[in-house]
């Protein structure tokens, strides 16, 4: 049967639609797509660069700001440091980690009050600087590095200002934390020096990590201390074997009892 038709005519139905699609995909459609993808990648690159510059990064060369602390006797006892008069009436144990943001808050808010009570002889404070958040710095290890250095500083009689300085300008979780050089320079700036340079005993204590092993060991034993177990609804949270875990930082213990530090009342009552 003959059909009357003039010229080339694409078939209708499925074949026709496919033809249109084929043309679209190969010509202007493809270059639009490539252009669009290029714009997307460019926009994201610009965004990434902008973020990189906007965020204040610790340049790892800046010196840590010095925060001067009270002048009180500070003596190292194992891996803890006791600040205040030995005959003070109340003992306050403070468990902290130099990278822990809540500990930074605690020190910034309560530090001055603690200092006043230390000076008045109402309390002595035992600082337990823990190498707990070692995995939360990038690269890992700042918590342990700083804890060790603070004990080295205690041996040179400069714990209070060293400790306070590291908290007043606390590095962010997930950042690198302060480098060994920055830590050594902080030592110099708080007065641990030999002439103009850093005291060599302090330097080797820091670089050798003299107290690191003891600190790690001490942290491990904390899970055995029932008084410091994480609580929920007044009861300790225990696993299948009946074992609890250290409640984390910051933890404050007054005369042997853990206190709730969310409100500041606990400190006012001490005299």
């Amino acid at each position, binding site marked *: 049967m003959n059909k009357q038709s003039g010229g080339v005519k*694409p078939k209708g139905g499925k*074949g026709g639609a*496919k033809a249109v699609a084929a043309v679209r995909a190969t010509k202007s459609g493809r270059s639009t797509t490539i252009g669009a993808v290029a714009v997307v990648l460019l926009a994201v690159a610009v965004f*990434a660069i902008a973020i990189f510059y906007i965020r204040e990064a610790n340049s790892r060369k800046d010196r840590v700001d010095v925060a001067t602390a009270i002048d009180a006797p500070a003596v190292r006892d194992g891996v803890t440091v006791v600040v205040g008069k030995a005959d003070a009436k109340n003992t306050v144990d403070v468990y902290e980690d130099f990278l822990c*943001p809540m500990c930074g808050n605690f020190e910034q808010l309560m530090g001055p009050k603690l200092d006043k009570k230390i000076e008045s002889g109402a309390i002595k404070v035992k600082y337990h600087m823990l190498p*707990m958040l070692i995995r939360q710095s990038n690269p890992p290890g700042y918590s342990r590095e700083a804890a060790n250095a603070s004990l080295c500083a205690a041996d040179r009689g400069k714990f209070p200002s060293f400790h306070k300085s590291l908290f007043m300008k606390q590095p*962010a979780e997930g*950042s690198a934390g302060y480098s060994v050089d920055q830590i050594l320079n902080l030592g110099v700036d708080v007065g641990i020096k030999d002439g103009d340079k850093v005291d060599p005993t302090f330097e080797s204590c820091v670089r050798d990590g003299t107290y690191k092993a003891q600190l790690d060991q001490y942290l491990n034993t904390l899970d055995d201390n029932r008084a410091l177990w994480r609580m929920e609804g007044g009861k300790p949270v225990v*696993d299948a074997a009946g074992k609890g875990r250290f409640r984390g*930082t910051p933890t404050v213990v007054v005369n042997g009892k853990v206190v709730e530090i969310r409100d500041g009342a606990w400190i006012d009552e001490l005299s």
Partner: protein
Amino acid sequence: MVSRWLSPRVLDIVGTVMRLGSAAVWLIYGVMKALDTEKFYVAIQGYELLPYWMSSLTAQILPFVEIIMGLLLLIGVGVRWISALAGLMLIAFMIGIAQAWARGLTIDCGCLGGGGQVAAEDTNYPVELLRDLGFLAMSGWLIIRPRTFFALDRSAYEDDTAEDETGGNDRPDEGTAPTAERTTSA
């Protein structure tokens, strides 16, 4: 005969919703992570799964990969491929969450007084898994049927679908290439 409710138009609309929804998800989560890669690093470390250098690399690169995925989905380029990548990522995330749940991992710091922290963390896991499962379903739809409206790659999927564009009239297949019918009347 295809029922009215499952017409290509309706399925395209559903696909469009899936695509734009997925785009929003990747863009929002990607930007949030990009603005604080340090916090993201800490979060990844919390799963205790990767060595730290992998956590570090992931924290810095993944947010931007997610943003690119979101933008490409938004403009509708490579919808099937992006959705396949998204599906793989979501499965990886769900495995990470499931193993954290199974191992009873908790966060060590920032718990003033402990209290409800542990319980809260535990009950988040199922919610997070369900959420990711939902996103996975959306990606799954787009892998199977990537054709959507307002997409640059719409034409690429024209021959994927069984229905044709002229709206439901089934005609016998007349061939896959345009052929010229040139006949002359005798």
